[in-house]
């Protein structure tokens, strides 16, 4: 993944010197985004059709009689040829209609608008933790290569990679919720606060602040901290590891030696020069890490009863609820593309070569 994005970045850097007009560039961008999403939908759609699960069963249950079954098959459009089903679906999507979910009986758009903010909140908190702790940890490991801080970071990273998040979540709950009482239990909010704040963004901490409900804000934040820390730990593992290897590359460069020889303080050499130079690839790493978190972590969401996108897509997939799966995929795809564009944009800001 990293390579693909890097390659994209390089292509951007190698563009002709005379850039095309802005409107043309925007149009080109939109077309490529639309084509990517269309391709994504097509692949998901086809996978959904080859999965050996009968989508009608999910809708009518096992006991329905043949007539009911056939009617639902017709209502779901499954009696049409495959290309026609896909065409109709895309036409609906173009009109902003993602269809109705079989599992929740609600418009998919409404469902996604409900579950995505939950994931967004969790992923954002996790990636913030990941960056705040992961980058300094990686820098420290690189600078102290081969000594205990390096080993510590690497061992912590290894644990982060190898321990199942499911187990870590349960142990976290057992320790911090059941034994120490530091954090509240699973869920996004204590049940008695539920529904007291109007969902404006769907992100509870933000909604509570907007409504001026500090008590609810603290409650939501306290519910967020444990799952976010656990997810964040996994980003720390990834981000610190990548930071370490980028930093090691930089620290071998001659300009670092030059800077040191010039008598620049070590802190300035490391944080300003070396870190400044790895900012570009690091953005890709963070963006990818964030995008992965935004897909929703099914296991963390399950342990913490966090009603997010991961659980939604998984449940839908296991019931062959294709509208919901396609809707969810579209969101994930859009998030990936959005973050890619964003990191591309940041490249241009941070790397003068990319601006040419």
């Amino acid at each position, binding site marked *: 993944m990293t390579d693909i994005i890097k390659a994209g970045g390089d292509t951007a850097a190698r563009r002709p010197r005379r850039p095309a007009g802005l409107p043309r560039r925007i149009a080109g961008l939109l077309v490529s985004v639309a084509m990517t999403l269309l391709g994504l939908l097509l692949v998901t759609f086809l996978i959904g059709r080859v999965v*050996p699960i009968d989508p009608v069963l999910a809708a009518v249950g096992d006991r329905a009689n*043949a007539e009911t079954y056939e009617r639902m098959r017709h209502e779901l459009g499954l009696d049409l040829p495959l290309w026609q089903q896909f065409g109709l679906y895309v036409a609906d999507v173009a009109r902003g209609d993602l269809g109705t979910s079989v599992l929740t009986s609600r418009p998919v758009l409404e469902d996604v608008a409900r579950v995505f903010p939950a994931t967004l909140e969790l992923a954002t908190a996790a990636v913030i933790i990941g960056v705040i702790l992961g980058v300094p940890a990686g820098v420290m490991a690189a600078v102290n290569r081969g000594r205990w801080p390096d080993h510590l970071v690497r061992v912590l990273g290894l644990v982060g990679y190898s321990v199942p998040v499911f187990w870590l979540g349960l142990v976290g709950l057992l320790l911090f919720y*059941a034994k120490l009482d530091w*954090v509240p*239990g699973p869920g996004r909010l204590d049940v008695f606060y539920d529904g007291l704040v109007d969902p404006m963004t769907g992100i509870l901490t933000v909604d509570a602040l907007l409504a001026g409900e500090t008590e609810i804000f603290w409650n939501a934040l*306290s519910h967020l901290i444990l799952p976010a820390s656990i997810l964040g730990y996994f980003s720390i593992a990834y981000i610190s590891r990548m930071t370490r290897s980028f930093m090691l590359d930089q620290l071998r460069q001659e300009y670092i030696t030059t800077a040191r020889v010039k008598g620049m303080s070590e802190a300035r050499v490391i944080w300003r020069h070396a870190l400044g130079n790895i900012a570009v690839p690091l953005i890709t790493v963070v963006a990818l890490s964030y995008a992965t978190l935004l897909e929703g972590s099914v296991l963390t969401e*399950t342990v913490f*009863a966090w*009603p997010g996108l991961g659980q939604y897509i998984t449940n839908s997939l296991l019931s062959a609820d294709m509208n919901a799966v396609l809707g969810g995929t579209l969101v994930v795809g859009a998030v990936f593309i959005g973050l890619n564009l964003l990191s591309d944009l940041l490249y241009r800001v941070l790397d003068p070569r990319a601006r040419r």
Partner: protein
Amino acid sequence: MRKFARSLIGAAFLAGVAAGVTSVAVPAWADTPKDSLVMAWQFDDIISLDPAEIFELSGAEYGAQVYDRLITYDVKDVSKILPALAESWQVSDDGKTYTFKIRNGVKFHSGNALTAEDAAYSFQRAVKLDKSPAFILTQFGFTKSNVDQKIKATDPNTLVIETDQAYAPTFVLYCLTAGVASIVDAKLLKEHEKDGDFGWNWLKTNSAGSGPFKLRQWKPSEMLTLDANPAYREGAPAMKRVIIRHIPEPATQRLLLEKGDVDVARNLKPEQFEPLKSSKEIRLVEALKGTLWYISLNQKNPILSKPEVRKAMRYLVNYDAMRGSIMNGIGSVHQAFLPKGMLGAVEDNPFKYDPAKARELLTAAGYPDGFTVSMDVRNTSPTMDMAQTIQASAAAGGVKIELLPMDGKQALTKYRARNQDIYIGQWGPDYQDPNTNADTFASNPNNADDAAAKPLAWRNAWDIPELTKETAAAVLERDSAKRAAMYQDLQRKVMEDSPFVIMFQQTEVAAERTNVEGMVWGPSFDTNYYRLATKK
């Protein structure tokens, strides 16, 4: 270098402080309030809140709190049919006309008066909407075109139902205790009707009932909140509110229950509830449910279709070992197709694990060295564990079973296409009458691949014209004792020789905090009631 170590420690410290601050700033997590019941439950199977469509276990339980029916049955003695919205009923001499007297003064949650018109509308609506559970009503000869004549209100207190044949009255009455026969608020639904949908699009996420609770909020796979109906005909529930949280992970449910953040946990597995048996704060309640676990042998497989092989398989299941281990607390050995508690249920279990006897039978069938078959298994607990145990016990008799783990819906799709060898699964009754199981285990009107009906007998390609006739005759027997005897006979026949090896009847274990009393855990999910629950 030390600076960097310090910066890392600093960052960690900041994060720690942030965690500390939040845990201090929030008041200590208190127990649940006295007037609310909080429950942890997996309810992601709910796909609709419309009683004409509800056909899932969790949905059925929701329906039983929010909607009332004409009649109900005693949860302690299922053979007693009790009045509910109907205060009395009569069956005509020819056995085809049922007349119900509807209670006066009952009101829906909306404040609208409940009359026989609402009852007629509810049944007509369910038949015309024709959703999954509609067959429970349409099996009495109602169609979209005749239901308005066959089910009608002759005055505000009288509902008349005409069936196409003289069925056993218990059969008809038990079907009217099912969720699809819930009485809905006709006036309210007509206000929400769009394009002739009988308000279905609205009702699948709203409520229009007269039951002890009304729907406050439903967030799919997240939260279901019910408010007490103070005007309920049998008295207001003690709990002002019931909050049900979808907690998918059983271990998480246990933590919440032990901390007192929920009052009831519904989905604990043996490994979670076993340690709770010694707890003073938590009580485990067991309720026998109608669901059966069985394995079935597809008769399209020439080996499995030999009578001796069918018989041998009955001796290759280690019933007692499973009951003492993986089924501990969640199931009891049961080998007949009618669950205990149903009219005519056979309760003796003649088969024991006996690999030597199984070998004799297999030798007689021409397989002295056994054979190899596959078994489709849904990859959930305890089904997977049961399959593994059966795999081991069958191997002792020479039968080598290859397990094919798959998702539940995938297994079902394959089963309905008759592409399996052996299937291991569950079957729960659709209504409280014995016909619900006889019709699937002992009836197969058409064994052709394109048959319209796909009962379990069909799914295992078991062609049984004689048993099919006997099952059809049993629904017409109006004498209850004779009818029970007919079902006993059918059960014995299926028990002795059929593709079905029925093994266990499910026990539901609910874990309640000891300050909660009065929850009713009935013999089916739609007879679990919260109305009488109290909290100290």
